[in-house]
């Protein structure tokens, strides 16, 4: 009995030992050396794997961050600035805060402003409508209102307003991931700075046709008159191809261009209503 026991212990023991040695060498040969920082960074990420950063998942993004050594061109829209603050010490760099941004729909061609001239009755997707014809209002740059942007948003931050037929972006939910920008076949949506109190000013038109042609299709089109450029004291507006564009890095939100625009093509969002100008009282000269 004892002999059987001893022999079995020796036999199994040696098989175990040999396997262990083989496994040890194999593990050493095929070992993947990973920077321990990747684990630390991945730990700080939201872990939602939403793809908003443009990478395949949070782990992939963490690898990209450690490889680059900084977060200059890498943005996690969900984590935002608080994430940058947490990751910076791991990488051993100083945190540089990014301005919060939001998706902006640069078209005000609503059903009222750009009346319907033809009826579209086909596949309910902007990509198809854009390749087929100019649009129900006739403006070849205007929003088609069929909601490709809505479908592309993973954060439920954009919807089509029933009355205007235009997309509306939610201030709270939008993380500026850029999915809607890519989805729109006419590049109507742009990622712009969010500013304090979610205020923003932008030219709500991307039509590059001559002023008279653009105005025929839409009441609030930009006609490229250039009055906004003249009135801006911060040189934030450029006029090119019959279209004005406001540079959001230079804009100070003074609102002068909004008042100046003759077609009301420049939009201001989340500002308090203007106070009416004080009536000039006639001065009575006391005799």
């Amino acid at each position, binding site marked *: 009995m004892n002999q059987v026991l001893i022999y079995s212990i020796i036999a199994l023991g040696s098989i175990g030992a040999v396997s262990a040695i083989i496994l040890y060498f194999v593990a050493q040969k095929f070992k993947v050396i990973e920077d321990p920082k990747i684990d630390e960074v991945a730990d700080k990420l939201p872990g939602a794997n939403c793809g908003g950063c443009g990478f395949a998942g949070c782990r992939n993004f963490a690898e990209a961050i450690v490889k680059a050594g900084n977060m200059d061109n890498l943005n996690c829209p969900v984590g935002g600035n608080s994430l940058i603050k947490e990751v910076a010490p791991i990488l051993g760099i100083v945190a540089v805060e990014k301005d919060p941004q939001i998706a902006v729909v640069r078209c005000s061609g609503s059903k009222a402003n750009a009346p319907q*001239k*033809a009826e579209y*009755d*086909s*596949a309910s*997707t902007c*990509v*198809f409508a854009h*390749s*087929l*014809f*100019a*649009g129900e209002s*006739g403006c*070849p740059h205007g929003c088609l209102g069929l909601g490709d942007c809505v479908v592309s948003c993973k954060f439920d931050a954009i919807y089509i307003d029933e009355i205007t037929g235009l997309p509306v972006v939610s201030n709270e939910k939008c993380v500026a991931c850029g999915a809607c920008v890519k989805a729109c076949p006419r590049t109507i949506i742009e990622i712009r700075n969010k500013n304090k109190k979610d205020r923003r000013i932008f030219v709500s038109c991307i039509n590059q*046709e001559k002023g008279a*042609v653009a105005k025929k299709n839409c009441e609030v089109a930009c006609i490229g008159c250039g009055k906004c450029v003249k009135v801006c004291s911060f040189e934030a507006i450029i006029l090119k191809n019959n279209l004005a564009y406001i540079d959001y890095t230079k804009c100070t939100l003074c609102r002068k261009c909004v008042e100046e625009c003759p077609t009301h093509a420049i939009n201001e969002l989340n500002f308090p209503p203007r106070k009416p100008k004080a009536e000039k009282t006639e001065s009575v000269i006391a005799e």
Partner: protein
Amino acid sequence: MKTFKIGGVHPEENKLASNSAIEVLPIPQKVCIPITQHLGAPSTLVVEKGGIVKVGQLLAKADAFICANVHSSVSGKILKIDTVTDTSGYRKTSIFIDVEGDEWEESIDKSQNIVKEIKLSKEEIIAKIKDMGIVGLGGATFPTHVKLMVPQGKKADVLIINGVECEPYLTSDHRVMLEKAEEMLVGVSILMKGLGVEKAMIGIENNKTDAISHLHNIASGFKGIEVHALKVKYPQGAEKQLIKALIHREVPAGKLPIEVGCVVSNAGTAFAVYEAIQKNKPLFERVVTVTGKSVKKPSNFMVRMGVTVNELIEKAGGLPEDTGKVISGGPMMGKSLNSLEVPVVKGTSGILIMTQKESKRVEIQNCIRCGKCITVCPMGLEPYLLAQVAENANFETAENERVMDCIECGSCHYTCPSGRPLLDYLRVGKNKVGQIIRNRANN
């Protein structure tokens, strides 16, 4: 009777204008001629505002390989160079001319006698076709001279003339074959010489028996031209289906007919080639059918390029009260217009006016996997699958399942009992996959 083997549908023929002789319209008062009326690179303007032009004068030049010249269809003064909406609603550069009189270029031979002798050589024919701005009048407007230039390593042995006109309602080719038969056949002989072949086959659908017998008689006076009757089935007029039916050769996927040794040209184009080579007349007018169940006078007009669709409809009795859609082309593959101020261009084969009732789209329901779309697809594809993957943006599968082989004939869309917008999603798929393929080639 010859036909193509896979797929096909039988929409109502409605050839309402087939007995209306070609009516030459009076000279318009003003025209608007787009400078790009063909497939390929845009042409370059050679005239400017205020210039005086004659009929047949060059307005825009072909500067690239796949490009065509554009000539004036009227004489008068150029009012302005501006943009005009085309059939899609997008704006294209055009020349607006105020018409004065009807003065033609001196080189054009206005006589009506038929010139049978072909004096030019093969190369001279191709050069002159290019000069005269001839493009395919079947609707695709591909520059004809490019078609005749056979690439290195390939050889053509037969020319096929497309007299099929399988789209319902359209009758312009039918009337050209009946009224200009001899001229058309001289044009076919010219094309044969330009291509360097000894044999030409004209395919005509069997609902045009008068054209078939008429051409058959006249073709006996020409060497190497055969006339063939084809079974009435849509889309017999599609290039690949026509080649399969007539010479039993299959064009490989993604390749052109020259790959199997033939070139296909439209019957109307053959007539235009005759006028260009024998009469020095550039392409500036064409036969356009104006038709529809509610149209007072379904007609075939000889129209100068640049006349607006509105004017044509007026000449055919005016726009009917209950019009639902106005279509440029036929009901299967035509484009619905969103403005009647679009000009007639080289590719306008017909204007179809549909009543409100006819234009109503069927309610869209779920796919019931009946397989009818697969039965009718002339290219042997699976439309229900391609439409579904295109809708779900799964373009990799769409490419693997050969969405690029689709010829957009609309047979699947026409047949679907659930009214699913198959052709629409197929077009989305083709559009996106085409982009993906182009990006891949550029990177």
